[in-house]
């Protein structure tokens, strides 16, 4: 029962990663490719980690205490990657917008309007 669950998690991870990399090639724009990259960073990694955690837990339940430490390390790695992947994606998107790479299908640039308003407020405060 639990073997099939581990295989299912790993297969889900592989499927999501393959879909993410295909999306990295098929999407037309940088801002749409971010969506495909997030697929690999979230679902691909989380399900692979879940499968490994389940495997380590079954070995721990079989009586080897060293695998509990191992599972804690895997959990720490997953938490670190989940926190840092969101932050780095945000930083890349922000720097791409600031460097003049506007989206291809954009019609109304609301962010530009907001930023010009913010700059005007900053000037008025000076």
């Amino acid at each position, binding site marked *: 029962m639990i073997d099939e669950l581990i*295989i299912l998690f790993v297969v889900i991870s592989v499927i999501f*990663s393959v879909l993410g990399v295909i999306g*990295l090639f098929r999407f037309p724009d940088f801002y749409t490719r971010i969506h495909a*990259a997030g697929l*690999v960073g979230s679902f691909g990694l989380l399900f692979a980690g879940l499968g490994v955690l389940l495997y380590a837990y079954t070995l721990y339940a079989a009586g080897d205490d060293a695998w509990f430490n191992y599972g804690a*390390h895997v959990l720490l*790695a997953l938490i670190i990657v989940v926190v840092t992947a969101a932050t780095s994606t945000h930083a890349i998107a922000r*720097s791409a917008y600031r460097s003049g790479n506007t989206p291809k299908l954009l019609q109304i640039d609301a962010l530009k309007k907001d930023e010009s308003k913010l700059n005007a407020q900053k000037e008025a405060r000076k």
Partner: protein
Amino acid sequence: MIDIDIFMIAAIIFVLLIFACGVRMWLGPTNADRMLALDVINALVVIIMIILSIRFAQPGFIDVAIIYALLSFVGTLYVAKLIRGDLE
């Protein structure tokens, strides 16, 4: 425990995906696309380290994966600053 070697097959598929992301880095129209492809490669390397650590029963690989994730995060933030033009 599991009779077919599912973790090794998954690791081989992830290595092939890393090569595909390398093609995206080669083509990428803008610098931001290249950085995004490198971010995906970093995530895939962490997945491969975690999977191979359970395949070969080596707990030390997990520690390497944690350090790799933190260092790649710092590198991504630095290159994002570079693309934006804050570094003169």
